[in-house]
């Protein structure tokens, strides 16, 4: 019988720490290193970068990550799977080849997977938006449309002996499920096994969030060594059961509790977790500590996949302007409230048109919503944010906060202002055959 496969998770998001990935490659005794770096909106931003420069549109940290791990992965035969291709997997693959050449790494086979970009297919067909039911044509300024691909093209590239596989939009768990399908020869219609592999992928995709990151809440939940947090490893058996662990002597911890929090992270109905490969069922998963930093995961299940693929449609929805300023000492709260009233009136007098405006006192109601009982804070931070159609109007919001310096209540300090374009994301469902994955190989 085939041995267990060890998969490491080298990133939980685009900007994540890099050293833990190197630690996994060097000391993790892994066969696969997966980097999941593509949030819902990231690909729309990457698409905008690609429009400005056709050689861009991949993850900004791709080169840094490859410079850190490529040599050791090559030496140890660790295969790399990542969605850092974002809007431009081919440019990303070229960049990886450049890193390899610059470091004298030879005999490397790189696969770029495309086909998730379905923007062309949106023309002429008016799909309803999943969020509101409104037609997709109601969105102004669409900049991207990317379908969530499944594990199949990654499996195909692994069969062709690719050492590094770089994709655009692929369902996050599929990055981890693919090597399991490849190693164990799982059928693409064995729903329970695909469900189990999806559980593993879901547990690993946020990297440090299962090894004690995003968990500490002293004194109730203590975690040691968060500054040198180890990233997770799944040791997966051919029957789909898995042990979650991490590199020895790394910081953090893997316990039943850290695993439970991650299992339910970003989950709605636990019995119906939709992916392009399977409808996974987490409801009977069991989580058992079997040793220090070793947690056994069993009981994942699955049902047949749906007929459709989810597509994230990125669209520009105006601009957000924001300003902040602080007040301290006796009467801080009253002066903060006065400041908000002044900015509200100023924006109205100036005729700044906003889609929506928000007034917060950070430290009081910015997170919790309308304050029910107000204590007397030693300091408050005024925050005004608004969404507008134009960048110019967005800038007015921060300016009206900043002018409180010389025109507002006494003692305002530390004013900041910012504007940004709003690239929002909506979702539609398309039939599976609309998105055709393609694999491009590149040798070094």
């Amino acid at each position, binding site marked *: 019988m085939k041995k267990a496969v060890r998969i490491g998770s080298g990133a939980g998001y685009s900007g994540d720490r890099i050293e833990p990935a190197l630690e996994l490659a060097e000391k993790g005794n892994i066969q696969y290193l997966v980097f999941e770096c593509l949030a*819902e*909106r990231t690909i729309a931003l990457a698409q905008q970068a690609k429009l400005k420069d056709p050689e861009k549109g991949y993850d900004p940290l791709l080169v840094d990550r490859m410079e850190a791990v490529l040599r050791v992965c090559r030496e140890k035969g660790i295969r790399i799977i990542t969605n850092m291709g974002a809007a431009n997997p081919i440019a990303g693959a070229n960049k990886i080849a450049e890193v390899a050449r610059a470091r004298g790494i030879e005999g490397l086979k790189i696969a770029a997977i495309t086909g998730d970009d379905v923007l062309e297919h949106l023309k002429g067909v008016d799909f309803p938006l999943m*969020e509101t039911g409104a037609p997709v044509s109601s969105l102004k300024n669409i900049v991207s449309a990317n379908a969530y691909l499944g594990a199949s093209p990654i499996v195909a590239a692994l069969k062709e002996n690719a050492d590094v596989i770089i994709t655009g939009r692929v369902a996050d768990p599929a990055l981890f499920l693919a090597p399991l399908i490849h190693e164990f020869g799982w059928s693409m219609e064995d729903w329970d096994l695909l469900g189990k592999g999806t559980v593993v992928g879901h547990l690993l995709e946020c990297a440090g969030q299962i090894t004690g990151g*995003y*968990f500490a*809440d002293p*004194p*109730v*939940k*203590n975690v040691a060594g968060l500054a040198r947090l180890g990233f997770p490893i799944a040791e997966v058996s051919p029957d789909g059961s898995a042990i979650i662990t991490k590199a020895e002597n790394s910081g953090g911890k893997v*316990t039943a*509790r850290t695993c*439970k*929090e*991650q*299992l*339910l*992270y*970003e*989950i*709605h*109905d*636990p*019995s119906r977790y939709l992916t392009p490969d399977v409808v996974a069922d*987490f*409801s*009977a*998963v*069991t*989580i058992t500590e079997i040793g220090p930093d070793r947690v056994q995961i069993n*009981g994942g299940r699955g049902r047949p996949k749906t007929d459709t693929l989810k597509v994230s449609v990125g669209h520009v*929805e105006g601009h*957000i302007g924001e300003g902040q300023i602080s007040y301290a000492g006796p009467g801080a709260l009253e002066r903060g409230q006065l400041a908000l009233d002044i900015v509200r009136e100023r924006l109205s007098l100036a005729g700044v048109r906003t889609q*929506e*405006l*928000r007034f*917060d006192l*950070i430290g009081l109601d*910015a*997170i*919790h*919503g*309308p304050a029910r009982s107000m204590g007397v804070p030693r300091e408050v931070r005024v*925050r005004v*944010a*608004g*969404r507008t159609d134009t960048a110019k109007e967005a800038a007015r919001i921060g300016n009206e906060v900043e002018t409180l310096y010389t025109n507002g209540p006494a003692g305002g300090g530390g004013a900041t202002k910012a504007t940004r374009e*709003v*690239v*929002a*994301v909506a*979702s539609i469902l398309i039939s599976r055959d609309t998105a055709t994955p393609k694999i491009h190989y590149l040798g070094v």
Partner: protein
Amino acid sequence: MKLRELAHSRTGDKGDISNISLIAFEPEHYALLEKYVTPERVRQHFTGIVYGQVTRYTLPALGALNFVMERALGGGVTRTLALDAHGKCLSSSLMALDIPELDGLCKPAAGDA
């Protein structure tokens, strides 16, 4: 006592939907969570934040509940004006919920071994 003494929690976001897991530290306290942390109470706790339906899923084998809250994120992370655009702080906010002190119930010791 506060919910934080009995359970731990993490928030996730997808579009305008926020989900909050609630996991009993000790399996025997799951029944308390089920009894006292109803969708109605969670909805009420997040008045002014959550404008849609709150659905509760139960995972007794894990000693956990999962609350799915609709229209909870000001339109979603990409367009909301909220300081915490993902609503990631909501799970900590829920930990302030009061749970009645019960006779005979061993209060869990603080500290996670």
